[in-house]
């Protein structure tokens, strides 16, 4: 039973299109995140949601909009896709406020042509 699941796993699209990636966690965690991992494996936080409230937005273009219908779901919508948006996007969740351990999904590989 997958703890953090995200769909789709692979996404190939043209520049200028709009796309969404969905994420669900069944761990009962209060906080969910979106991370972007570039081709050099650098993992950088994009957004964090705690109980449906946005608490981080790290200089991400406003073409990216997270949406959290409830605390188990955090979707990522991307408008007007650009070549530089090609990356692997990871959803994650956490509950432990001491260790801050993150539980990651398997990633959604986005390729913009």
């Amino acid at each position, binding site marked *: 039973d997958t703890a*953090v699941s995200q769909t789709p796993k692979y996404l190939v699209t043209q520049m200028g299109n709009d796309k969404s990636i969905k994420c669900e966690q069944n761990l009962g965690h209060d*906080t969910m*995140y979106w991370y972007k991992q570039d081709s*050099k*494996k*650098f*993992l*950088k*936080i994009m957004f*964090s949601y705690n109980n449906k409230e946005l*608490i*981080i937005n790290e200089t991400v273009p406003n073409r990216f909009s997270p949406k959290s219908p409830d605390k188990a779901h955090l979707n990522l919508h991307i408008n007007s896709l650009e070549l530089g948006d090609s990356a692997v996007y*990871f959803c*994650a969740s*956490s509950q432990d*406020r*001491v*260790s*801050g*351990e*993150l539980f*990651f*999904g*398997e*990633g959604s590989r986005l390729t913009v042509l």
Partner: protein
Amino acid sequence: QKEVEQDPGPLSVPEGAIVSLNCTYSNSAFQYFMWYRQYSRKGPELLMYTYSSGNKEDGRFTAQVDKSSKYISLFIRDSQPSDSATYLCASRAQTGANNLFFGTGTRLTVIP
């Protein structure tokens, strides 16, 4: 300058070797230090977690933090082919994961 710097490798070692993976960080306020392991086409998983300076051992893995030099290390003893993965160090200053900074990861291959 990135908050956490890590040699991307790649690093190839024979099975049974001792592996040393290292990171440096720039923020003196960092108190929590983690190592995540990421297999190919998978998400990162927490491997080790330490607080402040010192060592922590878990089976074949030892995490070491030297806050005076801002140096983070992960040692793997008796390395196995199943240890082949990318290892990412991460650090943060305060409780909670919201401001967790990752290194770029070191890709390790253990050759049978």
